């Protein structure tokens, strides 16, 4: 079973490779699950193996790092002879929690926490070594989470909901928020100092004014004004001002 588990884990790194609006991560989940289904009987029309492969590729959406939990759980349930309806219900029930926990733990926790620390370190003169540290530390957590999720799913099968209460997820998500907030909070003034250092006093005043106005505009017009639109708008204004001003 171990080589199949390893193959499934490797395939999980490409779980979003065919991301689409029809089945979202479904195809990637099906591809990752397929090695774990190979022990199922391949005889009959449709064979249990083929029916399970087809089910595995149905609609699925979650945080990509935690998709392994659904992959392992569904594959285990197939081997345990669970009904097709139960497996479909299990997959559907996992979408929301895996998306929510993963987003809180990774996209709104682990990633911005390390990114904030790296921004602060670069601003304090750490240079490229801070970026290397970010890459290594982030991926230790990343790979460990993918491996843990697949293993938990494969261990628990249809009882996988208990894995969602694991202290690693619950405490991790609870700690990641405050740590991220503190790290990025500290990184913002340090990054401002780092980026503004080469400018003359007058240009720094313009920069500070534009940053404050931009921040207020982004707060007042959420959804309509994005960082990209603001940046392009300010760049266009700077070009126009520079053109007129002699």
């Amino acid at each position, binding site marked *: 079973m171990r080589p199949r588990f390893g193959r499934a884990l490797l395939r999980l790194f490409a779980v979003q490779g065919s991301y689409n609006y029809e089945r979202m991560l479904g195809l990637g989940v099906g591809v990752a699950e397929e090695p774990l289904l190979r022990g199922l009987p391949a005889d009959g029309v449709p064979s249990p193996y083929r029916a399970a492969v087809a089910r595995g590729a149905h609609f699925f959406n979650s945080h990509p790092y935690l998709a392994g939990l659904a992959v392992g759980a569904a594959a285990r349930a197939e081997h345990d002879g669970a009904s097709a309806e139960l497996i479909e219900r299990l997959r559907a029930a996992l979408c929301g929690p895996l998306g929510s926990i993963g987003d809180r733990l990774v996209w709104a926790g682990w990633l911005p926490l390390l990114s904030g620390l790296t921004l602060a370190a670069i601003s304090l003169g750490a240079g490229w070594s801070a*970026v290397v540290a970010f890459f290594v530390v982030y991926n230790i957590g990343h790979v460990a989470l993918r491996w843990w999720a697949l293993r938990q799913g494969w261990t628990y099968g249809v009882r996988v909901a208990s894995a969602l209460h694991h202290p690693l997820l619950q405490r991790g998500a609870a700690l990641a928020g405050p740590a991220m907030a503190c790290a990025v909070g500290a990184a913002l003034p340090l990054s401002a100092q780092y980026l503004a250092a080469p400018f003359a006093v007058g240009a720094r005043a313009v920069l500070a004014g534009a940053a404050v106005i931009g921040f207020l505009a982004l707060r007042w017009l959420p959804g309509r004004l994005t960082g990209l639109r603001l940046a392009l708008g300010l760049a266009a204004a700077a070009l126009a001002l520079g053109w007129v001003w002699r």
Partner: protein
Amino acid sequence: MSLGILLALLAWGTLVGVDLVSLPQMMIARPLVAGTVAGAILGDLDAGLKLGVVFELLQYDILPVGAVRYPEYGPATVAAVATAHAAGTLGLGLGAVVGLVTGLVGGISIHLLRRVNSRVVNDAAAALESGDPRALVRLHVGGLLRDGLRAALVTAAGLGLAWMGPPLLAGVPSPREVSIFTLLAAAAVAAALAAGAAGTLRLVGRGVNLAWFAAGLGGGVVAVIWLR
């Protein structure tokens, strides 16, 4: 910029573009990493780090949940660093503009790719429902290859802009040119700081996290004053 360096940047930008969503999401698509490595390829780490920080702050504006549409700042940062390196001391603003346009194009291309993938999956529904594992893997690998092609095209477009931009700064810049490109750089940095702050506050929300954010902000301000 030699052909070898251009090809290295194209390869790096493609890897960065694929990493964002498809494979393996190890965050080389993060502007800090994409920019630093692009800077190392060009022998200009300072430009790589500076533009990496600018686009990393802009990235805080994005929370990649569900099927949300967002700009793609990885290949954009590679193109921005290439522009800034070629343009010299006044290149930060010009690099940022090239990066922003490339990021916009990258975001649109991701949306188009997902629509193409949807159509391909829809057309292959019967094969998928039959449980044919080879058809499933073929469709999935097809999606991966399309994303690789998309990332290469976006990076090539960004590097094309990087090639066109620096001649604007050829020779000794006039005082007017200096003021225009300084303003451009200030605008890019201001937008990055604004987006970084607004995006972080959106992530932080209210309650205890906001208190931790304030504590961090205070600590950062004290560090800035202490280091002056």
